Every structure is written in C-alpha cells, then in structure tokens.
C-alpha cells in the first residue's frame, strides 16, 4: 500500500536553534557592568571660599599612600568604617563629636520661616512627615581624602564601605517604614528616603598625607 512519505522530522532543528539562542543569551550578559554610582562635585573656581561647615559635621577619612586608613585622625581599620559612618550620621545619643541631627518637623518650621522659602523642600518635608514620620536628618558630611599614591583597590574598598553604610541606613528606614528593602520601594518613596539619607560624601584634591 502506498504510504505517505513521512515528513522530515524537524524537531532537531529546534534543538539547534535553542542552543544558538542560549549561547547568545549567555554571552551578551558576560560583560560585568555593575559599579558604584557616584556624582562628582561641579568644578569650583580656584578662588571660591569653601562653605562653612562645623567641624563636628565632618567625618574626616584619610587614606595615605601605604593604603592605611585614618578616621578623624586616628588610624583605623576598614572593617570599622561602616559602623563609624552609620554612627556618625545617626548620632542617637546626640554626641557633640558626631554630626548634628535635626527633626524633620524642625527643618520644616525653619524653612517656612525663611524670607524666601523653598517650596520644593517644604513639599518634601511635608511628604516625609506624612509617609515616614518625624525622623531625624543629619547635616553630616563624610570627607574622603586620598593620596596620589593610594591604590585604587583600597580607594574602592573605602568608597564601598561609606556607600554601604548609607545604603544600610536607607534600607533600615525603608524596612521600618514600609517593611521592604530600599530597592523594592516606589520611586516616590525612594526619593523621600534619599532626602533623609543623601550621599553626603565629599572628596578633596589628593595630596601627600603624612603617615602616622
């Protein structure tokens, strides 16, 4: 009996195509494109005066060319940096050597009493009070200075710890307020948290730092 000629089984062609597809899916994600996002300060003219900041509001972190760390003038280890930065910003016991912290409600009152109040700030403060509550915001700045001979790997380690400390503070607040980590929040919620814990890191021109 004449049978129908069986069609060429094309199932294996699909397998070949799957292989090619998976190859491309894998190779195009092989380039590691992750990193620490930072914003450089705008260039200042050489004769501009530095803004007046109280000494207690500046956490001085130095790295010299031997890749040794010094926090507020005392030699320290990188592993302690994260906790020190967190403590500096939070200042729970109002230690006069750590940064000044202000309640958002006080900052709001201060802004409203100004001759030309910044409406954006007022709106942000009000939103924070509504969504998060009356938390404290720090005026602190971490000042990072490195020597020209410092190793880049060490510099990144230090940056990582400082950024990590601020990220930890943000995550803590996000969890306390909404029960989710910072990355899972909506853009508006993230904006409010960023207002309370900004990336307040300042970097100075590198020069030679005396080794202790």
């Amino acid at each position, binding site marked *: 009996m004449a049978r129908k000629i069986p069609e060429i089984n094309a199932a294996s062609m699909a397998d070949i195509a799957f292989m090619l597809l998976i190859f491309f899916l894998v190779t195009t994600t092989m380039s590691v494109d992750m990193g*620490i*996002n930072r914003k450089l300060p705008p260039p200042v003219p050489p004769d501009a005066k530095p803004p007046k900041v109280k000494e207690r509001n500046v956490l001085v972190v130095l790295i010299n060319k031997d890749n040794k760390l010094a926090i507020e003038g005392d030699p320290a280890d990188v592993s302690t940096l994260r906790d020190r930065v967190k403590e500096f910003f939070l200042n729970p016991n109002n230690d006069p050597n750590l940064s000044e912290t202000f309640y958002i409600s006080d900052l709001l009152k201060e802004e409203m009493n100004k001759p030309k109040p910044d409406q954006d700030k007022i709106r942000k403060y009000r939103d924070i009070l509504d969504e998060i509550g009356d938390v404290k915001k720090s005026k602190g700045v971490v000042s990072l200075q490195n020597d020209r001979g410092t190793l880049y790997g060490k510099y990144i380690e230090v940056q990582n710890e400082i950024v990590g400390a601020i990220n930890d503070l943000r995550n803590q607040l996000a969890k306390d307020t909404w029960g989710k980590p910072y990355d899972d929040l909506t853009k508006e919620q993230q904006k409010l948290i960023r207002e309370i814990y900004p990336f307040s890191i300042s970097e100075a021109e590198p020069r030679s730092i005396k080794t202790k």
Partner: protein
Amino acid sequence: MATIRKKTKESTPAISTASLPDIIFILLFFFMVSTTMKEVDYKVKITLPEATEVKKLENKSLVSYIYIGTPLPAYQQKYGTKPVIQLNDQIAGLDQIAQYVEQERAKRSQADVPKMTFSLKVDENTDMGIVTDVKQELRKVQALKINYSARKPYKKQN
C-alpha cells in the same frame, strides 16, 4: 446493526514541528539585534576591584567607558608599563578626555545628554594619581555622573 468502525487503525497525525525552529530563529534574531556585545578591544589590562555596593548600570546606551590600566604586553613597547588611559579603542592622554566627552555627547540626543554616565573601568592596582586626574578632567567638562566599575564578590548573599 453494523457497528461503525474505522477501517484501519490510523495513528493520530504527528504534530508538525516544522515551524518551531522558525519561532526560535525569530527570538534569536531579536536577541542578536537588541543586545550588543562590547566590541572594544582592550589595549590595557584591567582587573576590576571587588565591591558589595554595586548597582547595575541602568541604561547601557547612555554609558561611555573610560579604561585605565597597564598596557597589554603587546602594546608595552609602544606605551610603556605605567598605567594609561584608553578611550574607545585608542590609548589616549589626559588632554583628550574633554574631546572624548564631547564626541560621546554628540552621539546621543540633546535630551539624553544629562542622563549620560561615564563608567570608569580601572585596574585595581592603579595608583590614585591618574584616576584623580581623569576625574578632574571630567569635572571640567561637567561630566559629573560617574560609575566606578567593580565586580560583585562571590560571597553568598543573605
């Protein structure tokens, strides 16, 4: 009554899979076109440092790269063994950074320029001197959004 029966036992016709590869090819071409692999030849050796606080670069099309590292052995005769800067696929000097920034900005639309990020891929054993100089040059041309490229360490996340 005559029972109605099928004359011969015919197996149900096999589902034709001839069109499956076509679907896969369509997907494949989509991926080949939409994702581009980095085509820049590295002329410098770069071992990225490790960092835990890394975030993915959001919009890859708005990212320009600056590579800093020691030249590969093949290029060491010409460029020496001290760390150099590579822009696109040419080894360049500090003075060419401003020009490079302008070129990269010209490649994108006006609206996208403020969203551009410069990713610094620097070898972890480089001294900070050259990196700081590069950052100063970027500041001078108001290229303020930067990203320090780093690897996520192989630790288990908790």
